[in-house]
């Protein structure tokens, strides 16, 4: 049973150019000219076809501007395709940027009815679900307060809560999970999981590759409005990551650091797993090696090597550095390799971009800097723990045994 079918769907946008400098002087004439002027065309989505079966969760991934949001807008009828046909079998609801339908003067209760109806719910159904909506959002005591007095957190929670109670046949999810605190996010994910188990067909559009991999049965990869891969989440996500690196290095280089003197040059950055195999995928909590090649062109008395790990949103997560561990690093001219290794990788599931710096201790000038151009690393679930990172630790159990006078002791690392 196919719930959703896109058949050669394309969407063209027209971008109107600003009038050129040599245009007519009279503003009215110029206006008329600009209306007649031919506009540039831009295909946001081009000849896209795919199907989603009932109860299936499909992920759509791709870079910004690859056409993900346009597909979402087409599916939810916000805008119409330029050509092609979309067939939807059942009630479809989109969970995009919640809370946009709130009116500040109205109370929480009135806004639940207003927002619920905007999302296509019947008033009777809203009345039935009112308690559950309020409970989920945790705003019971503010139900009859105008929402302009709500905190931003309450606003967002109430918005999501209404949308989460839509109970559609087909659910479209955008980057909605990026709202609220961690506890609320966990609750949202649980809710989506419940909907999926109840047989809801889901289309999930996200940058959070680990969430896509957890939730989806199949993934579509978009590039410049076209489908370039479709298949098992793990395969498609790996392919995306490979293109992600290529995409990054094809970007024009940033402005060179003025003080950059390449006395030592960065070579190749590679990762090795517990068995010593080279890989682009490591597992959380398991042994790892980060190996960095370099070429020194001069004798360096005290060099520092640094590898930075950034999350997909370009936030620095952690660092391997020779600055704080071990002694002085003296380099002779020639090529070499420096390896960082550990017993338990601290990074949890996700995709990380790396950045490499080689500098002299205490100096503000770098010998070389990769400018976020190094290899991307994916971390898969290994020893999966809750929280933000894996903390390597040992444990030891001590217990008084009744049978034996000697204390039983177990140690594990």
């Amino acid at each position: 049973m196919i719930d959703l079918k896109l058949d050669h769907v394309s969407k063209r946008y027209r971008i109107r150019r600003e009038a050129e400098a040599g245009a007519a002087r009279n503003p009215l004439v110029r206006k008329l000219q600009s209306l007649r002027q031919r506009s540039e065309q831009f295909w946001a989505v081009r000849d896209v076809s795919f199907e989603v079966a009932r109860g299936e969760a499909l992920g759509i991934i791709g870079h910004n501007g690859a056409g993900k949001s346009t597909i979402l807008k087409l599916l939810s009828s916000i805008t119409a395709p330029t050509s092609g046909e979309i067939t939807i079998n059942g009630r479809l609801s989109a969970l995009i940027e919640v809370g946009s339908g709130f009116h500040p003067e109205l109370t929480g209760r009135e806004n639940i009815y207003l927002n619920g109806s905007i999302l296509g719910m019947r008033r009777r159904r809203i009345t039935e679900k009112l308690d559950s909506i309020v409970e989920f959002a945790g705003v019971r005591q503010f139900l009859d307060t105008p929402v302009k007095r709500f905190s931003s957190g309450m606003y967002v929670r109430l918005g999501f809560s209404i949308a989460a109670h839509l109970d559609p046949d087909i659910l479209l999810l955008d980057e909605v999970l990026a709202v609220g605190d961690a506890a609320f996010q966990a609750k949202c994910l649980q809710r989506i999981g419940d909907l999926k188990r109840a047989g809801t067909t889901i289309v999930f559009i996200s940058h959070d590759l680990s969430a896509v991999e957890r939730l989806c049965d199949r993934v579509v990869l978009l590039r410049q409005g076209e489908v370039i891969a479709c298949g098992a989440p793990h395969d498609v996500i790996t392919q995306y990551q490979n293109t992600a690196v290529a995409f990054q290095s094809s970007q024009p280089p940033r402005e060179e650091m003025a003080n950059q003197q390449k006395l030592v040059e960065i070579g190749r950055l590679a990762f090795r797993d517990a068995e010593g195999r080279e890989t682009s995928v490591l597992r959380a909590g398991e042994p790892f090696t980060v190996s960095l090649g370099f070429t020194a062109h001069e004798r360096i008395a005290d060099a520092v090597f640094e590898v930075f790990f950034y999350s997909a949103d370009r936030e620095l997560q952690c660092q391997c550095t020779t600055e704080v561990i071990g002694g002085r690093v003296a380099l002779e001219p020639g090529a070499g390799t420096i390896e960082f290794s550990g017993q338990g990788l601290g990074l949890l599931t996700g995709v990380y971009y790396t950045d490499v710096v080689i500098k002299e201790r205490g100096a503000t000038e770098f010998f070389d800097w990769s400018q976020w151009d190094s290899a991307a690393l994916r971390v898969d679930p290994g020893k999966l723990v809750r929280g933000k990172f894996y903390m390597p630790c040992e444990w030891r159990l001590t217990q008084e045994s009744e049978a034996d006078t000697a204390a039983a002791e177990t140690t594990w690392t």
Partner: protein
Amino acid sequence: MSPDISSNTITDATARETAPRRVTVIRAPSLSLSGLTGGLVKLAQYSDLLYTLSVHRIKVRYKQSLLGVSWAILQPLSLMLIYTVIFSFIERVQTEGMPYAVFSYVALLPWTYFSTSLSNATNGLVSHQELVTKVYFPREILPLSYVIAALFDFAIASTVLAGLMIYYRIGLTLNALYAVPIILILTLLVTAVALFLSATQVRFRDIGVAMPLLLQLWMFASPVVYPLSAVPPGLRDFYLLNPMVGVIENFRRAILQGAPPDFRSLGVSALIAVVLLPAAYIYFKRVEATVADII
């Protein structure tokens, strides 16, 4: 933080299978009659939204305003007082024997309904950009909700007319019932113009800027402050092409004079309304298809 939401709020798969599902097909937009019926079906599905949004318009307008609902009365009442001062003291207008206050107020009622609807509804799409680009619902609900809110104001303001008629000892006859079909024709007309203007306003914001002037001209081209009989007979056929003429003149006739409407002028208005409404709706639906791209 809060209890686990039980899955009983989710319809389970077996219950889903039994209910028949509606199949929707989305294609490139086109101007067509099938779009008209499809649009009406969707509109019926969202009738609760139209209701909620109209109530919301009324509530928001009067929440945090000191005079509350009396604003609905104040607007036509103050206009009536101004016109009464001008046209019965400064420049005497022939009113077929009626006191000028009630003569003008009875015409200002349908006129205020018309002008309030249009000046609000024209901005209906543009002022809800954040909704229009993020959620789908039949967009005509936005201008329509303003029309319904204005109809509510019309009902409130009508109470003052009753007061005036008691004061001037003007009795109603059975012919006053003709007011119902007349207001219906007016509503069709308002809806048609509101749909057309709100859709056009998305691309050409000039419409919104021109609205106050346009409405002012339109009012003086309608028999609000003067009677139809004041129009030179040679111009009258041309004058009747303004659909508001048939509506306002006949509303006044039915209520104040207790006479049956002039079916010729009312017929012209009805014909214009009935032709205009489907055309405006098809046009609106065509614009709707890509409104999120250009708004």
